[in-house]
């Protein structure tokens, strides 16, 4: 049988060499892209292990789209190397194209075609046979809750439906590596959360994902690792947790059950930190904390006391705080002298 489940040991493709175990599915080394005088990407390096998600976070014009375009063979790097599933993006573009799927910034589905016809067009361009296309289309339409809309012309779809179809189309040949350029830009919160669910499923199935986003929450929700890009360079890198820790300012938050215990609780917390802030209305106390160790210490203290707690936890700074800390400007604001993002 020609089909294989992703988790199978025999996972691989007929015409693409399977990357060696442990090798990164996506790798960029010193990628640079100039457009005339403009430097859109200025030496970007990253590596995405198979089956993980890399979030590329940055404002408009940071060079995210150009990086994705280089990694997906749409534009040649001025210098540097990109590898997808072990294949060089400049020297083996065909092998790269067989191994990856791309969902660009704008929903690139054909408005005059039905959902099914869109899937069929891309499926036949991949050289899939009719029966496979039919099976894949049925499966994808169901996964993306588009079964009922499958035979309708895309023009009648809502923004969220278009986005889902766009992603479905990228998955017709189930590429092991997927690039998503701002997949949820312009979507309402509900559609966004739905799309995240689908992406988590894909990753659960072994797909390697690189996604760019301007939404800090999105990177936080989906990514195993995050690179923060600004003005064509990577300015920070790490897990969402590491990035939050790097900007410090984590806080221990304790909520007591009885308002009468507030003072006693404050006294106990003083043992951990000098600046304890008490919010009487919320029955909560906040103190700067180093990390989880302080939570454990606090938990042990309260464990041996009479004070009853509703909640005890660590409040980490949001990625928004992280971005502000790293760049001096907020992620949503385009930089004044920022480069024009080359749109698809």
């Amino acid at each position: 049988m020609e089909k294989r489940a992703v988790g199978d040991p025999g996972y691989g493709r007929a015409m693409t060499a399977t990357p060696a175990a442990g090798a990164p599915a996506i790798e960029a080394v010193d990628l640079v892209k100039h457009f005339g005088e403009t430097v859109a990407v200025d030496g970007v390096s990253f590596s995405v292990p198979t089956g993980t998600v890399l979030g590329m976070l940055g404002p408009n014009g940071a060079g995210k789209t150009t990086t994705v375009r280089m990694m997906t063979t749409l534009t040649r790097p001025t210098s540097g190397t990109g590898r997808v599933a072990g294949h060089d993006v400049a020297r083996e573009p065909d092998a790269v194209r067989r191994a990856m799927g791309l969902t660009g910034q704008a929903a690139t589905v054909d408005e005059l075609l039905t959902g099914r016809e869109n899937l069929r067009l891309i499926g036949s361009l991949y050289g899939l046979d009719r029966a496979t296309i039919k099976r894949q289309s049925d499966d994808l339409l169901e996964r993306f809750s588009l079964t009922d809309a499958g035979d309708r012309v895309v023009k009648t779809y809502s923004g969220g439906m278009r986005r889902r179809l766009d992603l479905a189309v990228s998955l017709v040949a189930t590429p092991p590596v997927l690039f998503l350029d701002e997949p949820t830009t312009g979507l309402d919160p509900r559609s966004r959360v739905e799309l995240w669910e689908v992406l988590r499923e894909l990753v659960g199935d072994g797909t390697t994902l690189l996604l760019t986003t301007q939404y800090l929450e999105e990177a936080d929700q989906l990514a195993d690792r995050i690179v923060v890009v600004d003005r064509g360079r990577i300015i920070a890198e790490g897990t969402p947790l590491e990035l939050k820790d790097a900007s410090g300012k984590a806080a221990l938050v304790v909520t007591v059950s009885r308002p009468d215990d507030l003072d006693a609780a404050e006294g106990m917390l003083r043992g951990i930190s000098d600046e304890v802030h008490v919010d009487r209305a919320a029955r909560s106390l906040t103190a700067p904390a180093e990390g989880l160790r302080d939570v454990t210490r606090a938990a042990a203290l309260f464990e041996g006391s009479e004070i009853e707690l509703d909640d005890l936890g660590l409040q980490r700074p949001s990625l928004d705080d992280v971005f502000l800390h790293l760049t001096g400007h907020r992620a949503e604001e385009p930089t004044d002298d920022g480069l024009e993002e080359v749109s698809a």
Partner: protein
Amino acid sequence: MSSDIDTRATTTGHLERPVIHQTSLLRQSLAITRRNLIHIKRMPEMLMDVTIQPVMFVALFAYVFGGSIAVSAAAGYREWLLAGIMAQTIAFASFVVAVGLTADIDKGIVDRMRSLPIRTSSILVGRSLSSLIHSSIGIVVMSLTGLVIGWRLRGSFIDALGGYALLLLWGFAMIWLGILVGSAMRSVEAVQGVMFTTIFPLTFLSNAFAPSENMSPVLRTLAEWNPISSLVQAVRELWGNTGPAPDGSALPLQHPVVATLLWIALLTAVFAPLSIRTFRRRTEK
């Protein structure tokens, strides 16, 4: 492998990883052609440029201006006119290609296709094939309209086919111009502007609607060296709708079939490399 089928039955099951087959340029191009033809099916008004518009031109010229345009053709102006309008309709093949291509580039469809393991040229070949089909519909409609107003094929069967073949070859050369304009312009509106202000005057400054003999010397020279005039003269002669060009006509009109073939070769030689370069520059950045 029933376990595979079982897992597929739930939405959280594994995705199937089908085998990707290498396909030929022809198969890829036909898939794209098919998609462009579905567009016509969904928006039949896209065919107006090869149906209602040329029929309107026939009516306008044959019945409104026709009386005041004297031609030497035995069967009269209406028969003489038809090849001219067909040539104009085919020249607009470039328009169809340009508009379609600009829209596809603009909407990211071209990028989507370039991210697939296919030959990039299939995007252009597919676009060209659907444009030739589009133009062929126009040729059929024009021929039927011609039959209604008294136009007839008066030459041999082979010559008649030759006339049609020249029109299609001309359409092929025009496609390269379309790819060039479509790749260079940023919006469908810009394409329309450029095309209307170039193709329309070009077809009018020819023998398509009125004989060049009656034009002022400068205009006559321009008109007779206009490639469209060679095409129109060649098709008219092959269909037996006119006699040879009068003495004193420019050289291309004396040998219109050869001249047309040379023009087609020249236009293709100039526009094909130029258009492919422009297309790549536009899409590969």
